[in-house]
């Protein structure tokens, strides 16, 4: 295969320089700073730090509550991604089938994505309120059944639903766009061959949107590890009893609220490595099954 390349390397360097500069300023520099702090005990107001090697990492990795955070983060990532993707896919398939009112839903479904995470949290705080919310009707039938302020599992469910609700809109746009890019002639031909809607979906539409599916999967998993902070902060504050203490929320609580910059830096480094590893795994093992046309 013949490769195109620039003879003068400095042109290439010049062309990528702005991009590299941005990546350096907004990623490599802060990341290296975090790495450095994670190996020290940093005084928040400046004034120096003490080198402690890997102590911050040892402390974290030997802390049962930290592993709890890791576990909760995985549960949240998997559950909210599965929920958000499956709901979005179902909705997109219906919108694509041009059922009644689909024009409205095509636009209306996008709105939730425009709502800021804390606002979503506030809305769901009302929905899930055990005393006055919509779910309080459950408590009228089964007194004391629903109380996410005490029951950790229920708190996790609450955060998962709120988190998924927000990303459904985003996923929906991509799924719908992918479905609409499938040539109508393919669908019509299979319909003439006698394939019903379910069969067409299974054998035709889903395989054809696999690249989009993969993209959405990577984005959703990454997002649920790094961008779930706002909802947790408003809805549960990490509680009850650390039940919803996601990794990213713990970083905020320890670093910004608690002024433990070094501990938070070590957690950030771990989270960064974790997200990178997850993305790598997805590209290595799942992307193989994706066929790009």
């Amino acid at each position, binding site marked *: 295969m013949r490769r195109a390349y620039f003879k003068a390397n400095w042109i290439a360097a010049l062309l990528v320089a702005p991009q590299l500069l941005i990546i350096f300023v907004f990623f490599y520099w802060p990341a290296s700073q975090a790495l450095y702090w994670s190996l020290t*005990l*940093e*005084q*928040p*107001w*400046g*004034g120096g*730090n*003490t080198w*402690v090697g890997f102590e911050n990492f040892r*402390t974290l990795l030997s802390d049962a509550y930290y592993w709890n955070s890791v576990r909760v983060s995985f549960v949240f990532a998997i559950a909210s991604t599965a929920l958000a993707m499956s709901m979005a896919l179902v909705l997109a398939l219906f919108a694509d089938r041009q059922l009644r009112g689909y024009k409205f839903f095509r636009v209306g479904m996008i709105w939730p994505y425009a709502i800021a995470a804390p606002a979503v949290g506030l809305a769901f*705080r*009302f929905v*899930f*309120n*055990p*005393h*006055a*919310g919509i779910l309080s009707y459950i408590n009228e039938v089964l007194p004391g059944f629903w*109380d*996410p*302020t*005490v*029951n*950790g599992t229920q708190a996790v469910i609450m955060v998962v639903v709120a988190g998924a609700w927000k990303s459904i809109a985003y996923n929906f746009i991509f799924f719908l766009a992918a479905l609409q890019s499938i040539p109508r002639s393919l669908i019509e031909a299979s319909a003439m061959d006698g394939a019903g809607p379910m069969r067409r979906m299974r054998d035709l539409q889903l395989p054809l949107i696999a690249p989009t599916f993969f993209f959405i999967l990577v984005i959703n998993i990454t997002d649920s590890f790094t961008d779930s902070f706002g909802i947790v902060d408003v*809805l*549960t*504050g*990490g*509680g*009850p*009893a*650390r039940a919803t*203490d996601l990794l990213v929320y713990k970083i905020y*609580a*320890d670093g*910004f*609220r*608690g*002024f*433990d910059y*070094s*501990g938070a830096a070590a957690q950030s480094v771990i989270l960064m490595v974790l997200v990178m590893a997850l993305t790598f795994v997805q590209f290595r093992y799942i992307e193989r099954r994706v066929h790009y046309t």
Partner: protein
Amino acid sequence: MTMKLACSVAALAIAAAGSVGAQDRVKFEYWYGLTGDLGAVVLETCNRFNASQDKYEAVCIGQDGYDQAVQNTIAAFRANQHPTLLQSFDAGTADLMLSGEFYPVHKLMADTGIEVDWDDYFPGIANYYSASTGEFFSMPWNSSTPVYYFNKDHFAAAGITEAPLTWEGMEAAFYALRDSGQACALAYAPSTWIDLEQFSMVHNVPVASNDNGYAGLDTELLFNTTQHVQHMENIQRWIGEGVAQIRTAQSGMTARDSFVSGECSIFFSSIADHNTVHKLAPSFAWDVQIIPVYEGFARHNTVVGGASLWVLSGKTDAEYEAAANYLAFLATKPEQQFLLENTGYIPVTKSTYDALLAEGFYAREPFINRDIAMKSLTYTEPTNLTRGIRLGSFIQIRAEWVNEVQAALAGQKTMQEALDTAVARGNDLLDRFERTYAGKTFP
């Protein structure tokens, strides 16, 4: 046309006058954490200061919460863009104290030649904000202390004639309320400030060794060995029996909302809520009482909560002079009264309090009985255990306590186990803090 011209000429003249005035004035920045109505009051004090003289100008910027005020200031400080004045809450100041990056107000006032009668401050407030030598680090301003709020109508219906001053009396009241048909007697929200810190003050029991951290950095937490354990076990029992119910923001209804709506008869909070509850105008008669003690314990003073104003290092003399004048302005009687009238906070100096009493300020609605906070704050002279709490990583220690208490309330462990864990984890944090500031001591 002429009208338009006249207008623009006038506008120009005003702009010119404004800019001349602004140029003459020494500006300084003040970052505060209070939000909502309270934030508006802070802003109003700045406007009042700026209108009261023409030499200095306070530029006051709300930071949307105490946490954020300190966080943002640290970030700005590292970039040398920090304000001259910072409103910082009690738990956020240990790092600032040890960093030494502040200008003690005692020294600031002396250097700028402003006379302040430091002995005029209530000892419960003074001790909290001053060095071991008795000199003030920061300027007390919005100060409060906890009390409990009770529904007088519910109490009357349950045959309770006196608001109880002991926990034993309180427990009897809970059951009397329940027997009178009141489903929720106490709206409970776990709070280290009330359940642990102020509770330990009034009982004169330690939260931590080294006189609650005042005497050194090698401090260990002790609250899993004191009456606090018994108290938390009682709270757990009351919740189990249904007379107390957990009411937090996360449950959709705070303790205060539950009280104001008449659902629950009692809730514990800062006296600063007195103003808010009054504004929310509950449809029943209500009052406040100082927090109870257990029988067999001699009641001691509570300490101040709220925030104080810190002057940060690295500013010019002119800015310091301006900030000093603003602080002196806030400490005057009219300005303290302005704060009191518009919020639920309490006076910080004896002279102001005495003057207000003499004027009958506390005999008028809505201020009636609000000075019960002063009674709580000055109940005894502060002892070594009731001066306050000076712990590093205090915000994280508070979070450990909350998380462990929640675990106990959810039935995952006993209260004793929960508090033991909180203490063990808190001690690790204190140890980390001590090593972060190796060789330093609280001034």
